[in-house]
């Protein structure tokens, strides 16, 4: 009986539920171990003048302080090595490390952090995509995919729409922050225990920066407490800092970022700002599409090039675009370098076309399902992507048609319409979006893996691959594949910690492809072992009486037994065959290598077939909005996917539900708010709100179709990232809901769709309908704040506490209440506001195009909204055109 396709528990589950699973901070403290942390730049952009370490050095327990001068080489980066680990002269983002500190106790470390004196000159930071565009601050070159005649089609089109979509970033919010324990060995060797998706990256970066040979450094990853892309390239920083201290002091050294620092100083999902123009016919079939992507790359390249590339190659999503011009640039801003995050640019590409689909439907007064269905890739024609890859094994039409029925789309759409015509308090929206997610690294070189399979004489097996376990279940999948290959119980197979000692030159666990690549490599190793075993087994089963000779190809491995298929009643246990092979001095440990064949992509041409296959799906989402508060509730979600043949149905389902809800957070509540100095304001779960258990949709149907046609190991499909993209259906459902109240306008909204953002739109549309001023203050509205004598916030407003001599918490009795306490002791965090703020006056720094003032808060003003956010708020800038589009812009036909 094959174990593949079954639902067995995650291989770490028992350790997880008992608290026995070990993460970096759980490894017992070693003798002599040092705690390591760093002091970073206080400015988003600043010139380093001087560093004074004398006071810090004098603190008892402080062992070492290092600057860039202590590194052999001070540049890192997964694609282009342009990022200094430690600032040399110019700091490019808040918190960019400058001084690494090692101390014997946490207390000494904390004191030393405060005692390091850094003198810097503050320079003007670039904090928005628009500022970067104005200042021509770009990373790398322009990337493009082009097909057909876009301008000609625009000129000839019956309808065109253009606009800008602003897509917010997001924090990974993996629960275990970046962490590394470095243990020095003999002869300058190092062992790094890192919470990373890319042990080889940490290994070679540490070796390079310390001037060691790669062979001197081993990186081990047992597991991560979540990764989601955030530990693909950015685990290197903690890794190298720990390695530096261990290498220099010859003492074990551990770096554990606290959550606040991790959120403040590490890269996030790329915010995008996408200008688009689309031409379409009366049925909503797109005839031409132009998208100009602008990704906020942060201060350094990191993985931005690849992220932008995936956005561009996912511009089409599930839809055939005959004429396309898809161009993108990476804006350099003074924020931590943005990095991989589940979906890797794909979601930012997909949301653009799904936003367009929704707008076409609203513009044409058509059912948004019909518009999308009319554009879906065909089976025999209309089936090549703009970059020229043939969409094979296309299940998209089947998925859309099936979900139309199972989600009860038509009936629910009618119900939504009726509800909206009656309700005075709420407005509902319903939408469907699709996904066609390309599987394989777009950088062809990375599509390889190796695995080591060791069989022990008791018949048990250890497997080691380059895949890293971050909860997604790759180890369980590999364990099942290996068990199946050897015909043994999966309990006999243990997947070992990932180590560069056993698996060299590994690709990051990323692109949803860890099981595809490493599972295939493990299978290849098993094939070799099986061949050795079959060789000896065939000789054993050869029988003169039965008249059969040794026939290795006829040896079967099933249920822990080995037999010749021609005489299945004569069986021997796997263990006994292994013992026999050992005694015969045959190899019982083999390495397998796997490389994906037939995939290539050329960015100079913008053409190729970069993906081995596509994971496909679609989702219907229904939302309800409170008209008075903007509160958004996701009532129902129906997901239907083609994930091939799952290796483990439970793990596959967990990836589907988990990814979708993570995407929902990105679309709804997760908003990164910065000051105008580039400091992140919401750097902990108190203010950064990922989905809570209560945010689960009341109706949450997650299913997949039977699909047997994938050219991948055991016909499985990668599933880590694609379902996240389907949460875009919540965004388009909000647009659909707003279309019921937006009068003649096509509704616009940026992501995330927070209650605040939604309410601003509702107020705006109400003002259009009533002809009165919007409830949201316009320019010159009543923002005179002279009468206010205090703040209204909690801890984020110590600036408003005034100059009284309030004693530290002395008059606080009891202490229950909500967890986010105000700073009872004033000014502890050194963030006293200006005098004006203390009096409670609002300093208005910026008005957006809709006349909304963006006033001052704690650290200064909020980062000005970019121009296109303002455009989205104004709602009036969607231009329609074409020969027959009459009247003023932005109107529904």
């Amino acid at each position: 009986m094959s174990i593949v396709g079954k639902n067995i528990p995650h291989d770490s589950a028992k350790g997880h539920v008992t608290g026995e699973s070990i993460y970096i901070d759980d490894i017992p403290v070693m003798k002599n171990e040092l705690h390591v942390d760093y002091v970073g730049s206080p400015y988003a952009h600043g010139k380093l003048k001087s560093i004074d370490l004398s006071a810090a050095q004098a603190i008892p327990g402080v062992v070492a302080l290092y600057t860039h001068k202590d590194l052999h080489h001070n540049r890192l980066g997964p694609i282009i090595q342009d990022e200094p680990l430690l600032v040399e002269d110019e700091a490019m983002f808040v918190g960019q490390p400058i001084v690494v500190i090692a101390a014997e106790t946490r207390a000494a470390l904390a004191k030393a952090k405060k005692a390091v004196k850094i003198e810097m000159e503050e320079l003007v930071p670039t904090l928005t995509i628009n500022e970067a565009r104005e200042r021509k601050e770009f990373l790398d070159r322009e990337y493009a995919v082009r097909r057909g005649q876009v301008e000609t089609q625009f000129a000839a089109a019956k309808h065109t729409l253009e606009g800008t979509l602003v897509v917010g970033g997001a924090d990974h919010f993996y629960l275990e922050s970046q962490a590394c324990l470095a243990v020095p060995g003999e002869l300058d060797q190092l062992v790094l225990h890192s919470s990373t998706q890319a042990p080889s990256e940490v290994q070679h970066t540490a070796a390079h920066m310390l001037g060691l040979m790669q062979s001197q450094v081993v990186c081990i990853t047992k597991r991560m407490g979540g990764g989601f892309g955030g530990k693909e390239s950015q685990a290197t920083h903690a890794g190298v800092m720990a390695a530096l201290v261990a290498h220099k002091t010859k003492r074990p050294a551990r770096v554990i970022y606290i959550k606040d620092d991790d959120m403040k100083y590490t890269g996030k999902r790329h915010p995008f700002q996408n200008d688009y123009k689309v031409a379409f016919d009366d049925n909503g079939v797109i005839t031409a599409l132009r998208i100009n992507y602008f990704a906020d790359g942060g201060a350094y390249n990191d993985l931005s090039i690849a992220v932008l590339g995936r956005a561009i190659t996912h511009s089409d999503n599930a839809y055939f675009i005959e004429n396309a011009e898809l161009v993108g640039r990476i804006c350099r801003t003074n924020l931590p370098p943005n990095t991989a995050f589940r979906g890797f640019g794909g979601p930012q590409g997909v949301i653009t076309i799904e936003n367009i689909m929704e707008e076409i439907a609203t513009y044409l007064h058509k059912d948004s399902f019909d518009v999308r269905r009319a554009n879906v890739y065909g089976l025999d024609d209309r089936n090549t992507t703009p970059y020229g890859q043939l969409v094979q094994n296309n299940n998209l039409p089947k998925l859309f048609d099936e979900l139309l029925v199972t989600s009860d789309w038509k009936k629910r759409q009618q119900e939504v319409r009726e509800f909206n015509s009656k309700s005075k308090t709420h407005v509902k929206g319903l939408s469907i979006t699709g996904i066609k997610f390309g599987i394989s690294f777009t950088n062809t070189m990375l599509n390889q893996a190796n695995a080591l399979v060791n069989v022990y004489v008791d018949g048990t097996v250890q497997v080691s691959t380059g895949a890293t376990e971050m909860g997604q279940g790759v180890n369980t999948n590999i364990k099942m594949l290996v068990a199946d290959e050897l015909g043994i119980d999966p309990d006999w197979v243990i997947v070992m910690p990932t180590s560069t000692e056993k698996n060299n030159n590994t690709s990051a666990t990323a692109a949803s492809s860890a099981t595809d690549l490493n599972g295939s490599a493990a299978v290849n190793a098993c094939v070799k072992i099986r061949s050795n075993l079959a060789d000896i087994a065939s000789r054993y089963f050869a029988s003169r009486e039965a008249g059969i000779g040794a026939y290795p190809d006829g040896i079967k491995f099933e249920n822990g037994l080995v037999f010749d298929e021609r005489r299945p009643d004569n069986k021997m246990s796997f263990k006994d065959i292994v013992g026999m092979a050992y005694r015969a001095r045959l190899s019982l440990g083999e390495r397998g290598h796997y490389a994906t064949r037939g995939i290539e992509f050329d960015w100079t041409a913008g053409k190729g077939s970069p993906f081995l296959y596509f994971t496909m799906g679609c989702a219907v989402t229904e939302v309800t909005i409170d008209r008075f508060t903007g509160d958004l509730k996701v009532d129902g979600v129906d997901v239907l996917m083609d994930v091939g043949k799952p290796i483990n149905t439970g793990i596959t389902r967990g990836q589907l539900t988990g990814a979708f809800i993570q995407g929902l957070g990105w679309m709804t509540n997760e908003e990164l708010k910065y000051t105008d100095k580039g400091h992140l304001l919401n750097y902990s779960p108190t203010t950064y709100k990922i989905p809570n258990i209560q945010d689960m949709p009341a109706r949450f149907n997650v299913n997949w179709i039977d699909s047997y046609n994938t050219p991948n190991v055991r016909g499985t499909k990668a599933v880590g990232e694609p379902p996240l993209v389907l949460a875009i259906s919540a965004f388009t459902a909000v647009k659909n809901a707003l279309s019921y109240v937006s009068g003649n306008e096509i509704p616009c909204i940026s992501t995330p769709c927070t209650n605040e953002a939604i309410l601003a739109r509702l107020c705006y549309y109400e003002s259009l309908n009533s002809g009165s001023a919007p409830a949201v203050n316009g320019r010159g509205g009543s923002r005179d704040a002279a009468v206010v004598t205090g703040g209204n916030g909690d801890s984020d407003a110590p600036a408003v506490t005034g100059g009284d001599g309030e004693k530290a918490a002395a008059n606080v009795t009891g202490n229950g209440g909500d967890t986010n306490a105000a700073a009872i002791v004033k000014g502890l965090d050194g963030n006293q506001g200006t005098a004006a703020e203390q009096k409670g006056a609002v300093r208005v720094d910026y008005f957006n195009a809709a006349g909304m003032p963006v006033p001052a808060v704690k650290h200064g003003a909020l980062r000005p909204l970019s121009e296109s956010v303002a455009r989205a708020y104004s709602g009036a800038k969607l231009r329609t055109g074409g020969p027959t589009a009459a009247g003023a812009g932005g109107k529904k036909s």
Partner: protein
Amino acid sequence: MRDYIFLYINGREHKVSGEQAFVPVTDYLRYELGLCGTKVVCAEGDCGACTVMIGRLENGTMVYKPINSCIQYLCQLDCSHLVTVEGLKQNGKLNPVQEAMVECHGAQCGYCTPGFVVAMCSMFDEGKPLTACQIKDGLTGNLCRCTGYEPIVAAGLAVDFAEWEPISKLYPAENMLKQFKEYLQKPLHIKSEGKELFVPVTVNEACKFKSEHPQTVLITGGTDIAVNMNKRGLVPEVLLSTSNLPGLSAIDSREENGRTVLEVGGRVTLKQLEDYISKLNEEMKYILWVFGSPQIRHAGTLAGNIANASPIADTPPFLFMMDAEIEVSGVNGSRKIKMTDFYTGYKKLALQPDEMITKIHMPLPLKDEIVRLYKVSRRQHLDISAFTAAIRLKVDQGKIKTAAVAYGGVAAVILRMTAVEEFLIGKEFSLETCREAGKLARSEISPLSDVRGSRDFRLALAENIFSKFYHETAERQLVCQ
């Protein structure tokens, strides 16, 4: 006087003295005892990865509750029994909750899992199945970034109770009870490296100590103070823990002028209040349901929510609207302060240095009063409000007779909107009146922008909430609840 904290952890006795009395519980568990199953992520009670069960003596038995150990300090734990994820196995085997979490794929990366498991074991302690809604309510305080929660709810529904053993059976209480009863008779005092902890056993002792040490930081649930200690550099020199004070943990009620008035003791937790009030007032029940999380509500107190003096605290708008009174005790006895007079400025209280809140007198709405409470936050659960409102009207034959309106999140303190109240009285209860009231409310306030919401958002809410109130009460447009 005793100079050590006495507690049990997973059934084993611990005596903690000196500097360690002042460390967070999670540091003690993880770095001192090596019990690393309890994880720290946010260190501010917002993720639940550090959830442990705390057992205390209540009415002669040990009662266990889930709390966030990252915002508990050892000084709060005298005479308690802490049960961590490591202490949950039954006879060396996974317990039924753990089994269900394994089978249902309730764990992916595993970092949040111990917190979920402890919270689940706590809510299933009675050995009875719960509905999906009840399971969600019990897990509001636990964040998971991997699963999308569905497998966790499924695990909750799949628990097999045939072999369930409650905590009380895993850890026989006999010895603990005997020892705790004895220790709870006398105060505890620890001095170490310039820090001082006092754990009194009478209110008089507490007030006397406070009068002698004006810099005293009083700690009960610690859900606010501990966050300040973890994150905002608060280093109290003198701490007074109320954990061993008897007589402040009860809720009583009396009738006054035909109105029920609750008398809520100074140590009554928000969870106790929630359980008590759920049959009396739907609105307050709702507010307490969305207040923090079970872990926060089990630790935090009503008195603490008041004393923390946040203008966006969730319980005070109700107290402002109902003209509640705060009873405080000091060395010279007790007095009552009107809720509306209790805050004298941003984070300033009308309390003398020796005084502490011992009781809250909380009148409840009459049957013929229309009352709604509103909390607008980015996320419905476990989030701090951007805006709060409490509106109470008495309408007779279409005319508004009395009106009480309180807003939070629009100024340095919670406001009674007196101009709006005056406007409303005598008017017809109509949408038009409510719209006008909303506009007036908007013109009366001038909120600031912060990370939870812009000034304009708050202004729009201040105006809109009255129309919402009208539709929800007069027209019963409760289409979506």
